[in-house]
């Protein structure tokens, strides 16, 4: 179970990433955030976001049309 959940369903690029960053900023290092999104582009984008920012993609999955990402916040 992630520490926080962000519902980004129905939002299109770049909103899911920007909302995610906003939530991560207020979380402590090591805490996990679960993001739910329906934008198919988010699959590639969340991986790129994590590789670039150092936040860790802990889990990734899909349930029907909903994509699910669990991200662990990197140390600042």
């Amino acid at each position: 179970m992630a520490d926080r959940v962000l519902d980004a369903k129905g939002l299109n690029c770049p909103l899911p990433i920007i909302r995610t960053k906003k939530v991560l900023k207020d979380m402590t290092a090591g805490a996990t955030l679960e993001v739910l999104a329906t934008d198919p582009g988010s699959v590639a984008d969340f991986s790129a976001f994590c590789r670039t920012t150092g936040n860790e993609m802990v889990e990734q999955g899909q349930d029907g049309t909903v994509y699910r990402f669990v991200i662990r916040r990197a140390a600042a």
Partner: protein
Amino acid sequence: MSPQGDGAGSANAPKSMTIIVTKGSLDWAYPPFILGTTAAAMGVDVTMFFTFYGLPLLLKKLDLQVTPLGNPAMKMPMAGMHMVMPNIVGMIPGVDAIASKMMKNMIASKGVASIEELREMAVDADINMIACQMTMDLFEYKLEDMIGGIKLGGAATYMENALKSDINLYI
């Protein structure tokens, strides 16, 4: 990998990007704001330089329009097809307003942010937004017409930022 890297600046400086924003129609306003806000969310220091027709994107009240005139690539989804507006139709007064209204409805229904929202995110993300002083003079805009948190500057101000940036875009 982290955004700290071998940027043009010192070894530990975050990556940086500049964008010259030269166009202010509804469609052309998207790429600079989407890239700018996303880069900022990825830890990049972003500078946006608003010049010529891009400058009005900093006005407090936005009323962005799109025109199908001279744009054969603008294909609007309609009745399950994609329609191109012939130039002769695009020339009729009021067609731009209708096309703009349609585009804004599409944007809202597809969960795409409005330019107003993206611009607010750009301000929140501390993006360095510079209004071109020469364009302000040329088109007779006053600083009080513009949103807060922007700076005034010219080509040299832009160049100083561009020279130390990893990415420089002209849109």
